[in-house]
């Protein structure tokens, strides 16, 4: 009679609400977005639970006799379920465990309706007598996110509901003691067979559950195991002990049916509390580790490990991947700025978007088998959103940097080519023309038919052309010295030094022709610009220039003993040099303390 989950449960009722079927209808409410409607729904739920429990007590207590307290216990278990479920639901709106626990509460309620004495309720209670066990199995599989993961889990949970609702049928259809609407034939044989079938399939479901949970425990890391272990152990114990308690306790301990039922109720009531604590205590929403993320944000520069590593540590998932959203390309990129895909193929991997304001900055891809609650990842995402935005900008920069570097190098190469072309054109064209023009003028001057005035004028013209030619020679030399083209860096530098109006020493430690053209011209312009700069600003009495090959580096130094105070910021010339050096992957340093001369040092890669 009172033995709600004994094998010979009886009692009838109409079909259950049918609102749950393996999968919950979740409100999908995010704590932040729709708190009020959720609050209202939960209050309504609480009121109806109190109301339903009260009605049940009113109906069941009068005819209950000595075991009245068992009815009270079951109603209390119902309330405990609903209360625990609602607290979890309210605190973690995105987590479905809360709703699932509430469902368990209604399963307890439905099952205990069998004791009300009202035929229709009794029938319903009889049909749903073992439903709470299926829900408990469901809870075990769904913990901690509330969602079922993987086909094995889903099949096992579905099987649990079949065992509880379908395989329950023979127990009342062929039971003469069952309420009238349910009983169809007095067939104790069929009832016995049905009972055995339900028992063994139930056992299979329980074993499958143990196997699946054990595998999860093995895969989980130690932190998760500490939470999962006790919970799974208790859940399994409850699921196994409640249906078998009739046999076990009675045979082994000689318990009375009343005490047995009371123990069942206590066991039952323990389940929602354990799960709600599991969800709330947040073995999985370990805020402590989110604080670590906060500390990571506070760490500076080099002390800060990569964002991915920090997230992996905080979330306990080494497989964490981060993708950055590059709006220009409308595509995802990895930390290096290379295009990437968001691999969220199945239930194994999942991703949450990370936003700063309404702006999508990236996504965190995680192992859904390890992290059941996307809300946790989302929270972590909110913590690191700003940092992620920064990383995203970095990734974006990196994405464009390669292209930029290549284009700068092309620009410098193009500028060099252009200089060479201009110098060559002037050499072949204008310079030759000026020679010929001057020659012609001189020939006019030398012609015997020319008057004295004409001779003088023509000679003056020839000299003027010669001066123009000298001017052009300097210009061509500045654009691209012929020596650099003809002989290379050391000859060109030597000529540069030869023409300095201030004593300039030259140390040459290079072999001409051994260096790439772009390196030679860059080094040359470094020396030329460095000397011109020093001449203009340093008030130095002597300069020194040093060109030295050091392994795969060319060292270029221009030093003076002047007043110092030169800086990259001050002169357009040095700035331009720095850019040029940077393009070919070199380094430029200026040491120029006031009063102690200037030391321009450039290292160029020439491997």
């Amino acid at each position, binding site marked *: 009679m009172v033995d709600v989950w004994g094998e010979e449960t009886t009692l009838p009722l109409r079909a259950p609400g049918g609102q749950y079927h393996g999968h919950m209808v979740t409100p999908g409410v995010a704590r932040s977005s729709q708190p009020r409607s959720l609050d209202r729904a939960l209050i309504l739920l609480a009121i109806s639970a109190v109301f339903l429990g009260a009605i049940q007590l009113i109906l069941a207590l009068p005819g209950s006799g000595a075991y009245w307290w068992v009815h009270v216990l079951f109603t209390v278990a119902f309330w405990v379920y609903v209360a625990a479920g609602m607290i979890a639901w309210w605190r973690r709106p995105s987590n479905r465990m809360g709703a699932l626990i509430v469902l368990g509460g209604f399963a307890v309620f439905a099952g205990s309706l069998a004791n009300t004495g009202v035929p229709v309720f009794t029938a319903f209670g009889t049909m749903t007598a073992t439903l709470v066990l299926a829900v408990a199995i469901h809870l075990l599989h769904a913990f901690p996110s509330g969602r079922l993961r993987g086909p094995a889990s889903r099949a096992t949970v579905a099987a649990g509901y079949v065992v509880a609702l379908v395989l329950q049928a023979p127990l009342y259809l062929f039971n003469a003691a069952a309420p009238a609407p349910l009983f169809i034939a007095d067939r104790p044989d069929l009832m016995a067979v049905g009972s055995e079938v339900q028992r063994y399939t139930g056992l299979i479901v329980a074993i499958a559950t143990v196997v699946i949970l054990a595998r999860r425990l093995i895969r989980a890391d130690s932190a998760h195991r500490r939470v999962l272990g006790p919970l799974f152990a208790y859940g399994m114990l409850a699921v196994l002990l409640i249906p078998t308690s009739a046999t076990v306790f009675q045979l082994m301990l000689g318990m009375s049916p009343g005490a047995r039922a009371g123990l069942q109720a206590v066991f039952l009531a323990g389940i929602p509390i354990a799960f709600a604590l599991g969800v709330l205590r947040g073995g999985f929403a370990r805020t402590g580790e989110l604080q670590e993320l906060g500390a990571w944000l506070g760490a500076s520069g080099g002390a800060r490990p990569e964002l991915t590593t920090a997230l992996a540590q905080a979330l306990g998932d080494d497989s964490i991947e981060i993708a950055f959203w590059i709006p220009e390309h409308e595509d995802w990129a990895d930390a290096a700025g290379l295009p990437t895909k968001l691999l969220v193929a199945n239930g194994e991997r999942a991703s949450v978007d990370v936003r700063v304001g309404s702006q999508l900055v990236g996504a965190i891809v995680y192992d859904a088998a390890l992290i059941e609650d996307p809300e946790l990842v989302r929270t972590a995402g909110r913590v690191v959103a700003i940092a992620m935005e920064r990383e995203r900008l970095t990734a974006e920069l990196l994405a464009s940097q390669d292209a930029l570097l290549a284009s700068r190098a092309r620009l410098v190469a193009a500028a060099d080519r252009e200089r060479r072309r201009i110098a*060559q054109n002037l*050499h*072949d064209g204008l*310079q*030759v023309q*000026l*020679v*010929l023009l*001057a*020659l012609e*003028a*001189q*020939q006019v001057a*030398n012609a015997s038919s020319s008057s004295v005035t004409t001779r003088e004028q023509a000679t003056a013209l*020839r000299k003027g*052309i*010669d001066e123009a*030619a*000298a001017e052009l*020679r300097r210009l*061509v*030399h500045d654009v691209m*010295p*012929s*020596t650099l*083209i*003809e*002989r290379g860096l050391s*000859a060109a530098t*030597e*000529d540069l030094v*030869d*023409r*300095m*109006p*201030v*004593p*300039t020493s030259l140390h040459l430690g290079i072999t001409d022709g051994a260096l790439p053209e772009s390196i030679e011209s860059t080094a040359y312009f470094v020396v030329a610009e460095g000397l011109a700069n020093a001449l203009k600003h340093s008030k130095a009495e002597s300069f020194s220039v040093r060109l030295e090959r050091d392994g795969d580096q060319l060292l270029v130094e221009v030093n003076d003993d002047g007043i110092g105070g030169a800086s990259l910021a001050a002169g357009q010339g040095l700035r331009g040099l720095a850019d040029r050096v940077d393009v070919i992957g070199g380094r430029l340093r200026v040491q120029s303390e006031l009063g102690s001369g200037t030391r321009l040092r450039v290292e160029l890669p020439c491997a």
Partner: protein
Amino acid sequence: MRVVIGEDEALLRQGLALVLEQGGFDVVAAVPDAVQLLEAVDRHNPDLVVTDIRMPPTLTDEGLVAALRIRSAHPDTAVVVLSQYVQRRYAVELLTDRPAKVGYLLKQRISDVDTFCADLRRVAAGGTALDPDVVGVMVKRARLADGDVARLTPRQQEVMALMAEGRSNGWIASRLVVTEKAVVQHASRIYDALGLPVDADDHRRVLAVIRYLAQ
């Protein structure tokens, strides 16, 4: 006097040939690159070669390389190298080995036809012709690096530069509008100051000065 010309610019090659013909030279060949220049020199064994430095195919210094080769293969052939730009290193290379019958001038000097032809003749006769531009660089450099040169009077420095260009005392005297004797006096003071051996021979004196400046 038989001359071979090496110059890749056709107009300039023709202009040069014309100037030399008018100046009384016998232009036996005018070629556009260094390979043909060497061939022509081998074939004609000329008294004088006038060549551009930068010529095809590489447009770098093959004219200079050819000039040095001609100087070693044909010691009797005088070589004058022309260039759009002059520098100490090329001058030193041309003069170091055997400082005679050699010249190194800016192309633009062609236009002063008389001076140019005189320079060529002087070189062909065993002298030297260094462009004032490159001599200027050398003297200035020596002045900055060397106290002895710096102590020379401006006039002495001027005389020294003209000597380095390869000018004769007479030419220098007329250029500076002084007597030839005054030039000789300047010269001997320069030798004293720089510690150069006094030599009666004009060439050797000039060479001493050039060597001094080129070091």
